[in-house]
Every structure is written in C-alpha cells, then in structure tokens.
C-alpha cells in the first residue's frame, strides 16, 4: 500500500463533498425565483430594519476558550504515540506520561482558578 493508494480515496471523498454542496448551490441559484426586495435582502432582525453590525462586541470569553483549547489540543496530540505503544513502553512510558499529564492538570487547575472556564 503506497501513500497514493491509501489517501487518494479521501481526496475523492472530499471532492464528492464539494460536488454535492456545489450541486446544491447551483441548483438553488438556477431554479429558484429571484424576486429581491429591500426588506427581503435585509438581515433578520425580528421584523425591524436592523441598524447593521456597528458596535457589535464579542464576549472576551470566546477568546479565552480558544486560547485554552489551543494549549490543550496541542498537548494532547503528544499523548497519542504513547497510547498506541503503551505495552512496549511499559512503566517507564507510564511515569513519563504522568509527568506530562500532571503539567496538563496543573495548567487546567490554573485556568480554573483564574476563572478562564467561568461563563457566569
């Protein structure tokens, strides 16, 4: 099995996904009626004409979540090689991973204590 044989099907599947979505988009644009009015083109605002997006603010919580996610997701990637080789690496691998996981847990405890996980 070469790289091409194994991964070509995935490329084809991605193309199938793109093709499906493209087909949907094109059918909708070609077949559907086009009766545009000003009210219809306006973004939904519970029946009022909206004031637009000026002055819209995000909650900073979303950025905090993204930061915490980044740290955790990248660190967890380092654990996958250990999980599939656990029997070969034995107790040495276990202790090494525990040190790594304890760093992760300290990080989680710090985030928790600092309130990065609080959403009122």
């Amino acid at each position: 099995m070469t790289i091409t044989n194994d991964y070509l099907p995935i490329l084809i599947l991605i193309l199938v996904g793109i093709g499906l979505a493209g087909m949907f988009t094109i059918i909708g644009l070609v077949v559907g009626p086009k009766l545009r009015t000003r009210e219809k083109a306006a973004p939904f605002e519970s029946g009022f004409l909206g004031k637009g997006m000026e002055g819209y603010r995000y909650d900073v919580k979303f950025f905090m979540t993204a930061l915490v996610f980044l740290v955790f997701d990248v660190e967890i990637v380092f654990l996958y090689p250990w999980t599939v080789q656990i029997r070969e690496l034995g107790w040495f691998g276990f202790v090494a991973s525990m040190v790594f996981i304890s760093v992760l847990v300290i990080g989680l405890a710090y985030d928790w204590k600092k309130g990065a996980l609080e959403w009122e």
Partner: protein
Amino acid sequence: MNLLLEILSIPLVQTILKIVFMIMLFAMPLGTLMTLMERKWSAMVQDRVGPNRANVGSFRGHGLAHIAADGLKSIFKEDTMPEGSDRFLYLIAPFFGLIAGVSVFAIVPIAAPIGSFTFQITDIEPGLLFIFAITSLSVYGAVLAGASSNSKFALLGGTRASAQMISYEVFMGLALMGIFMVYGSTRVSEIVDGQNAYWFGSLIPKWGILTQPLGFLLFTTALVAETKRAPFDAPEGESEIVAGYFLEYSGMRWSAFMLAEYVAIVGVAALVTTLFFGGYHVPWLHLWESAPEWLVRVLQFAKFTAFVVFFCWFQIQLRWTVPKFRFDQTMALGWKKLLPLSLANTVATAAVILIFV
C-alpha cells in the same frame, strides 16, 4: 465477462464503487430518511400523528412522500443573500459541513474483507486521528456562515458554535485514548478485529463498550455536542437566536446545511458502532463453522446497519429525553466535568493495562 472482471480488479474502480455505495446508497439515503424519522418520532413523543399529508397519487407511505416534497419545495425556493454579507465566505460556508460529513465514511468498514478486497473505502494508518482532523473542519462551516451573514443572531450562533465545538474536541480525543490503549492501534481495522476476541472462552465479546464504558459515554457525548444537536443545541437554539449560524440561508443552501447535519448523525452512529459495538463483527458467529462466506458478509452488513439505525434513533430520543443545556452549562460540563473525567479515564486505563496485562 473477463473484461468486466478485469475492470473490477483495478483499485481505482473498486474505490469509486465503494464510495458510490457508501455515500449514495448508504449514508445519503439514511440521512434523508432521518429527516422523516426525526419528525415522525418527535410527533410520537408529543402524542401527535406527524407528517402524513403529502401524496403521490394515492400513495402516502406514512409520510414517505414528504421527503420528496420537502426536497422539491426547497429547490423552488428563492436563494437569498443578505445585504452587506461577505459574498465569498457566504458561498463556501455550506461546503465544509458536507465535506466533513461524507469524509467520516472513508474509514468505516461494513463487512469483513474477502482476500485483499476490503469493505472499507480506505484503511489508513492514522485512522481515527484522521476523523479528529476532519470533524474539526466542520467548525469552519459554522464560523464562516455566522461571520459572513451580517446578522447579529447568526454571528452569535457562529461564535457559540465555534466555542462549543472546539471545547468538546479536546476531550473527544482524550476519550478515545482508552480505546487506542486497549486495542493498541489507531487503525480502524485493527480496533474492529480486536473487538472480535472473547472473555471466558467464547462467552462475552470484548466490545469497546465493555472494555471502555466511561470512554463510550464521554465519546458519544462529545460527538453529539460536535453535531450541535439537542441537548447541546445552544448554537442553534430556536427560542433565543432563531436558527443560529445558518439563519440567513434559504432554499437549497439551507438544505445543504440540513443534509450535512443528518449525514453527520449517521456518521456519529457509524463511528460509535465501529468503535464500541464490534463494528461489523456478529458476536458468536464463529461458532457456526460451516457458514458460507457470502452469508457471513450479509449478516455482518445487516448487524452493522441495524446498530447504525439504532444509534440514529438513539440521538433523536436523546433530544426528547434530556432537557436542553444553557450555553454556560454546556461549557462548564465540557471543561469542568468531562475533561477531568476523560483524563482520569486515560490514566486509569493505562494503569490497569500495565498491572494486569
């Protein structure tokens, strides 16, 4: 006849046939049926009859004609684009969900291989790591749809969806580490074959749900949260932000989002079946030694399909069993309960394997 066999032995032709079968004959029809299944079962739970009026001539089929009627209806609806939206991002947002939805089926095996021919589109070495990569792709669909619509509700839904999906991705990976440890591989075929072993002679099959019960709960929760369905539907909460990130979409592009969601449901069911319920392996079938090979394959496919349909139903039933979480509850559940639990599960599984095996 010989020419036909020769064409069929080309790997690329086999791959394309497998893809056509898995996507066009398995995932998509099941996904479309799910739309009706969901409406019918919701009606049943609420003591209603549900959709049954659409008809082709005198054929109603307990609402089956509604699938065709819904499809036709959305084709002939206007495709609107709100003023001030980012046209390019608005155009490409529906693509991500469908790409992620169909790509999941690349690694799901539906029957045991015959010789070198596998009933699996591709059996790559990273296996499930590929699934993690591809499901995170669907975050883009929600974020781009929300950000490009120039609508406050859509943007709210998009930010919520992104925060929820990346949070649950963290311990989705952690929850499966137990499975990787028990079966010693991330390759799907090896995990499935590992579940064909038995405890006490041939009494209890070593299914993932029995070796990793906590892992099963955590992983299923994470997957349901990834598809943004109830009880984790704060990003699309009808009662507060109307429809969430795809609020401004209409017509066929809206259908693309809905189809992606239902294909994702089937994908979730297929993954749970493959990882925790023995995949295609029918338990105790090896006791029947004289079983013809073709019948074994048919039984395996039937067992796989039955479990997939069951878990599709399970996700609908979940929607009507568990009350919906508020968004802060969703995030607190993920980071404060499920993440420490999945870390503990990983450590405990490792210790148990090293002590007893």
